[in-house]
């Protein structure tokens, strides 16, 4: 299996996210080492090498894989908070050079600002967009700032009922809400900006089972309602297959002659879940019990987690270095 999931023949206009020949190498801090004489040693680990990935408008792409497989690195590359050592990352056909409102984010934690009320958290985006940095410094004497703030709050209160919250909740602080409610607010905060792509980093990881199921249905509803392109990072395979119209599996890989030494991470599977599960999307919750779902789950599990399978992938790549 190679590391290229790019379909070069498709319509370029639909492409929202594109990673082209991306390489990410981490270099450790220099360590003093004695080897006959003193010297400094730096280790470098290449996480991605020649990574290509294309995500189209309206796709709900779930990125799945075990811990340390590069999910978060991929997330940061698309977000613009980390840059590749080589290769390019584009969002909406423009190179990613910084974190911008083109990409919305929902984290497992830290999505909401604890000092702002729920309504002010949601209103923060429009407020930041329509007021300059200096204007916010003199906000108490700026009539325009106050008007924009009022309008942004009205918009935020209007959005509350669409995300299943009461108007009263708007004046609460995030810590006064349950975990599920907080994530609803975080989703509203991100979607109010109408981002080109919504990045979600294990957003439901800290929720209990039933709240998690509610939130899964909620994000599917929001994605459809707002016509969102979503990249959803998770380590839960069931969640990835239930939510994603497409699932991308990442895994670590090893050198054939040194199997204990991880040398990087790569895309090991990229599947169109919708066609594999019978074409309907969003799919009903009962799909999890269907034989098609179980078969697909097993295949993706093998791709992502089965060490024997990964060893075969590594040997294949080792014999054919141009495939990597």
């Amino acid at each position, binding site marked *: 299996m190679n590391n290229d999931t790019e379909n070069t023949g498709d319509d370029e206009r639909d492409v929202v996210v594109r990673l082209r020949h991306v390489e990410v190498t981490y270099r450790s801090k220099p360590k003093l080492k004695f080897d006959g004489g003193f010297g400094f040693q730096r280790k470098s680990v290449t996480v991605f090498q020649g990574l290509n990935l294309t995500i189209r408008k309206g796709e709900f792409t779930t990125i799945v894989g075990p811990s340390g497989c590069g999910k978060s690195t991929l997330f940061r590359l698309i977000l613009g908070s980390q840059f590749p050592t080589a290769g390019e990352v584009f969002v909406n056909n423009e190179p990613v050079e910084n974190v*911008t409102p083109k990409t919305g984010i929902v984290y497992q934690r830290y999505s909401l600002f604890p000092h702002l009320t729920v309504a002010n958290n949601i209103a923060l985006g429009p407020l930041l967009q329509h007021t300059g940095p200096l204007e916010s410094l003199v906000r108490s004497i700026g009539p325009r700032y106050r008007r924009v703030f009022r309008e942004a709050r009205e918009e935020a209160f209007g959005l509350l009922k669409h995300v299943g919250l009461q108007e009263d909740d708007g004046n609460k602080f995030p810590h006064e809400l349950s975990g599920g409610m907080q994530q609803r607010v975080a989703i509203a905060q991100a979607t109010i900006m109408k981002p080109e792509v919504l990045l979600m980093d294990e957003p439901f990881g800290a929720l209990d089972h039933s709240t998690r199921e509610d939130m899964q249905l909620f994000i599917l509803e929001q994605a459809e309602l707002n016509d969102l392109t979503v990249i959803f990072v998770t380590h839960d395979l069931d969640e990835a297959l239930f939510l994603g119209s497409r699932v991308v599996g990442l895994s670590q890989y090893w050198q054939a002659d040194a199997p204990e030494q991880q040398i990087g991470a790569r895309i090991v599977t990229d599947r169109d879940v919708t066609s594999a599960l019978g074409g309907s999307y969003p799919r009903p919750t009962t799909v999890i019990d269907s034989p098609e779902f179980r078969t697909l789950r097993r295949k993706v599990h093998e791709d992502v987690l089965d060490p024997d399978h990964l060893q075969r992938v590594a040997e294949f790549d080792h014999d054919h270095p141009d495939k990597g």
Partner: protein
Amino acid sequence: MKFLRTDAKIPWAGKLALTLLPVLILCFAYVKRSSELADTDRAKLMPTTEKLVEAAKKVALPLPTPERESDRRKELRLERQFVIFKDTVASFKRMGWALAVILLAVPLGVMMGSYPWAESLGKTIMVILSMIPALALLSILFITLGTGEVAKVGLIVLGVFPLVCLDTYLRARAIPREQFFKAQSLGACETELPWRVVFPQIWPNVLNTIRLNFGIMAVLMIAGESISAEAGIGYRIFIKFYRTTAMDSTIVYVIWLTLLMFLLDLAVSLWIKHRYKWLAGT
């Protein structure tokens, strides 16, 4: 023994009783010991409560006007009456100026905690400055800056500024970087991050730090005033009362200063609790 448990819920009356207990014990011990010493040659070292009340009246109330009084005596009388309040104003003016300069440590700390270049530039020098015992520089400050207000304010600033700056820096550093990215994804530019993301989240805790430094500020203020001043709590205690061993007036001044600092601390802490309700949930 439920009230000894870590999760004990103590009713407000119980809390009040526990709060007052050490204060009452302290007062009782003082009253008992001072009355024991009242008729000995050590009576002056620990004046009785009656003497303390007399001393308090002398420094806080108007002095009696004699039937005949020369202009010079009148001038002296007017100068000496309400002296505790005049000293308080003089001392708190110095504290106020010092506080105004110390507040500049907050934006500096926020910058250091937000931008790596500011961290590299400011962290080490602030750590070094915080290690200098300000009192050791007392004489140098008065020689170089003169015996005026600048040296006294400078002493307080030197002692507290680096601490507030480093505390702000550490708090700013602890803000998860995810929040920066989140704010940027909502349209914030780089320059907005320190005051729109970092500052509002750490400000109540920085206020708490400043509040906890009021005691150090008072010590440095008294030290500065004890070298050279024309009015002030430290000046009165060290230059006037010390020379005459006026223990009763000294204790009145100490109680007064402690009370003021306690009330200031209480006011700031209540204001933080009222103004920043979200802090309870973090």
